[in-house]
């Protein structure tokens, strides 16, 4: 069974539910502290940097954690093809470490800037609507998503706006299909206004991968949407209907939620990769 390290950096607060979400798709998840010996990271087949407030978001979200030796080691493992999923604060760490989008090796090419929407500022905690796009990260992080499906998922961030000051980087992200998850309207149409575009990110990006597709910086929280019981009753789409229909039925409530597909894709590809490696 593939082993995934959930990286526990001081200040993260989603490591346990992220571990449970990984276990729910058949992976072995271990919470690994940031200051474990450097050799520990090579024991794992994949990595998740969970959400929270690493180092209290001091200076900027992710800025301090991005300089940890552990992140450097995980970057080396990713270079060898292992997958890395950064959720929310984990995404901020990956961007500040220059691992996404990775056009110029080792260079920081983006920021996750404070949310920006008309007449709104600050921290945002609500459900948003996403669509998985085609791109190099699809096999790792969205293979289980149905084409065109509108996926509801919670977001909770103050600095979730993907930006780059370099027009060439933006153009290449778009051209090479690195926006794997995009905010959309509940109908699946463009997220042309708040709340569908919740933070003003370039290209309405909710998740951006590197060129190889094995690193995803993802702002929403799939671990908070892994079970049907986590879906709000008032959600106005198929997932809301399922949730309402499941009231009082414990087995149904323990069924998959809309965030499960991302972890299923991750598990499926990890298993494939492990099988390929054992054959070779």
């Amino acid at each position, binding site marked *: 069974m593939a082993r995934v390290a959930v990286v526990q950096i001081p200040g993260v607060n989603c490591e346990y539910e992220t571990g449970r979400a990984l276990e729910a798709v058949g992976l072995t998840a271990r919470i690994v502290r940031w200051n474990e010996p450097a050799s520990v990271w090579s024991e794992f087949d994949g990595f998740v940097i969970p959400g929270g407030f690493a180092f209290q978001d001091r200076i900027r979200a992710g800025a*301090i954690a991005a300089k940890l030796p552990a992140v450097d080691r995980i970057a080396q493992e990713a270079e060898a093809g292992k997958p890395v999923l950064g959720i929310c604060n984990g995404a901020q760490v990956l961007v500040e470490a220059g691992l996404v989008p990775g056009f110029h090796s080792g260079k920081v090419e983006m920021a996750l800037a404070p949310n920006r929407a008309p007449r709104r500022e600050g921290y945002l905690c609500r459900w948003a609507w996403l669509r998985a796009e085609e791109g190099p990260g699809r096999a790792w992080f969205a293979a289980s998503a149905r084409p065109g499906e509108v996926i509801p998922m919670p977001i909770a961030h103050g600095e979730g706006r993907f930006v780059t000051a370099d027009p060439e980087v933006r153009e290449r992200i778009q051209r090479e299909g690195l926006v794997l998850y995009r905010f959309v309207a509940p109908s699946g149409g463009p997220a042309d206004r708040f709340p569908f575009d919740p933070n003003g990110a370039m290209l309405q990006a909710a998740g951006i991968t590197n060129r190889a597709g094995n690193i995803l910086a993802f702002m929403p929280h799939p671990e908070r949407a892994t079970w049907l019981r986590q879906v709000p009753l008032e959600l106005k789409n198929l997932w809301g209907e399922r949730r309402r229909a499941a009231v009082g039925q414990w087995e149904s409530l323990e069924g998959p939620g809309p965030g499960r597909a991302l972890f299923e894709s991750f598990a499926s590809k990890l298993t494939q990769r492990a099988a390929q490696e054992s054959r070779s």
Partner: protein
Amino acid sequence: MSAVLLVRLKITDLSAWTALETGRRLLDPGYSLARIAREQLLMFEPEPGAKADSFERALGEAVRQSNFFVNPNKESYRFLTAAERGVSWSPPEDAWGIVSRVREDTRDDGLRERLLREHPMPGLSAIRRAKAWWLWSHGPDGGSAPDYFSGVLGELRDPKHGLLVNPHAEAAMILTGAVPWSRVERFLIDPAPAFRAAA
């Protein structure tokens, strides 16, 4: 000529402390950092044709009485009228500074609306925001070596170079001595300069 409000924590600034600890780990032998302090800058810009003294008295009162500029339990401040601020902005003694602003429009319209709703005053066009990091640093020759330190601790280029400013979201200006306020005003008003990641 704009009025200026400078706000800093009077309790321990954990962000500045962490910047100091992290910054020290990025330095080459022979370079040292003694201290980092952080200050918020709010610039109050008069309407075209108006002068800052048309609103400064009311503004000074609003800063003292309102609860949305300064929390006196944890912050101290200096409110400087256009006349009081002088012609140039100088770093604290023995320090130099990195001043950063967002790459987008630096105006805080929400703060201005709230101010004018609760403390109406004539002639105030905009409130602009910036942040100053003050550094007390030493190079091998005993000087403060701002060129070296701004490369290592200023704009983030890669995990080993840069810390305090992510140039994809912010623009920065270095203050190694007295800088005319007019230059600071231009820095806050003009669009942020272009930036290339690969440069």
